[in-house]
């Protein structure tokens, strides 16, 4: 608060000083301001330019070459043409779409469900802790755990056997599309805590008067949820959904640790295809083309999402 107090006395002195400033040489003033701005912006801009944007542009440029790391030959768009006629790329794209849809359906919906169910219950905190702990675990710890669960002689099969459901035993990570689906479940276990927290914050911003008024009007249970709570949660939902889309498009860690994209290339996502082409097969141009396609998809998706969010903001007058 101490910081704020000088504001008022200063405001009363405003007029005489401003006229004085105008007499001052405006050009040198502007130049000095530009130097200050430069000093404040340069570190961030330089680092982003050198370490993120420049590498991205190099990758985009490289995608036009047939490049094995030693020799490079300009081939125009043929990497992209080869890409779109490659069945492995098609599967990788399909897996990425599965990830986007799967993580929207499972962690986001479950997070919403749990937030609403445990929001006003006294013992809700215990349930929420159970769901949030995995979110604080690192991705590699999660992957280790799930390898452990899903191995052919792992905990899941062991349990199925023990309860007399041995017939349901599977080689969980060895067949497509089962491997992608179980990895989405593993991600759900870890990521639901994040959306749960965000939805809880959203629920706390709903005025209790709104809920009370709706109750008095006879809204109950599912009706109350659908007609009152869900619309009020909309700003937070946009954030959670947008984050979920961008992150799932970039899925890498858990697949890399659980199956390395295998067996073969069956469970690869775009991020993994790009990684394998570039670093395992040394097909730099082709790998670059994959990452450019991935970039276009992510940028398009996040632009659509941000644009939508901005529209909603202005529409609701928040």
């Amino acid at each position, binding site marked *: 608060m101490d*910081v704020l107090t000088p504001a008022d006395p200063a405001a009363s002195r405003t007029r005489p000083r401003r006229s004085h400033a105008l007499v001052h040489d405006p050009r040198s003033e502007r130049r000095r301001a530009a130097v200050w701005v430069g000093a404040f912006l340069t570190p961030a801009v330089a680092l982003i330019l050198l*370490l993120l944007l420049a590498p991205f542009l190099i990758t985009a440029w490289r995608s036009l070459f047939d490049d094995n790391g030693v020799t490079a030959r300009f081939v125009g768009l043929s990497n992209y043409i080869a890409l779109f006629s490659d069945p492995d790329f098609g599967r990788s794209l399909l897996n990425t779409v599965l990830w986007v849809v799967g993580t929207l359906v499972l962690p986001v919906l479950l997070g919403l469900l749990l937030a609403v169910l445990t929001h006003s219950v006294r013992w809700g905190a215990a349930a929420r802790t159970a769901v949030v702990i995995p979110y604080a675990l690192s991705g590699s710890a999660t992957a280790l755990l799930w390898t452990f669960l899903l191995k052919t002689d792992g905990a899941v099969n062991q349990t199925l056997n023990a309860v007399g459901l041995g017939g349901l035993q599977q080689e969980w990570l060895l067949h497509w599309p089962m491997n992608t689906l179980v990895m989405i479940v593993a991600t759900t276990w870890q990521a639901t805590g994040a959306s749960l927290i965000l939805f809880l914050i959203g629920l706390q911003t709903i005025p209790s008067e709104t809920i009370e008024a709706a109750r008095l009007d006879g809204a109950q249970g599912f009706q109350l949820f659908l007609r009152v709570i869900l619309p009020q949660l909309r700003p937070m939902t946009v954030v959670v959904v947008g984050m979920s889309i961008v992150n799932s498009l970039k899925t890498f860690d858990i697949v890399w640790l659980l199956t390395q994209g295998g067996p073969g290339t069956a469970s690869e996502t775009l991020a993994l295809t790009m990684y394998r082409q570039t670093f395992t097969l040394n097909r730099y141009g082709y790998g670059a083309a994959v990452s450019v396609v991935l970039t276009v998809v992510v940028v398009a998706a996040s632009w659509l999402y941000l644009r939508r969010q901005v529209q909603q903001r202005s529409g609701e007058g928040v």
Partner: protein
Amino acid sequence: MTGRTARGVLVTLISVLWLVPTWLVVVNAFTPTEQYTGSPRWWFTSAGLFSNIRAAFDSADVGQGLLNTLMYSVIGGAVAVVISALAAFAVTVMPVRRPGLWFWFIFIGTVLPLQTFLSPLFTGYATTNLYDTQYGMVLIYVALTIPFAFFVNRNFMLTVPKEISESAQLDGVNWLSMFLRIHLPLARNALLAAFIFQFTWIWNDLLFGITLSLSPNVRPVTATLADLSGNYGTVGPPVVLAGALVASLPTVVLFFVFQRFFVNSLRLTA
């Protein structure tokens, strides 16, 4: 009444389902390597946790990995937050032409897929001798975490009333002392939130760890653990789990210490 019972059953069911994997991690991290039969255990047989942790630390340099990660997370997170606060101040308070353009220029870093940077960075690092050095790792983590920290800081600084900086300017305060004395103290919470987010992000990064480093005294702990569990690992799953448990502890603790704070600071911006 039936509705409430159904809700209770459902929530209990989901909680138990979520706790089972967590339980397995803990129990099996306690299982001594020599008693491990290849299939996971469901109950404690002995307190082998500490010998497992010791094995992880001895055989895979988890200790060195943890130290590296701690250094990258603390230094990288702090530097990124300061640099992004400067940029956020410039874009929101200083008279910049086209602030929107600068915003997107910095923010685009969170949107671009990380894998896009890998190959040119690898080449660039190799030619500039930054590959497999601690400087190189800190540098890339700073660059990678600037965009999001910038986003948080900018959103906060937009809420600081314009009159404050205007009157300070008329009092002849220069930009640097205005930033240091007014905006930085006001943005303390946003800075801390941004730091915690970036700390956790760097702590959990695997991709850049395995790409830009090789030797044990540079590799972050996530990369060390990935090697430990990979095809060339020589230790059993209990040791790997014990290592993972230790590696996750700092973020778990950080998370619970700041849980209340997280909720509050986010609510301000909502």
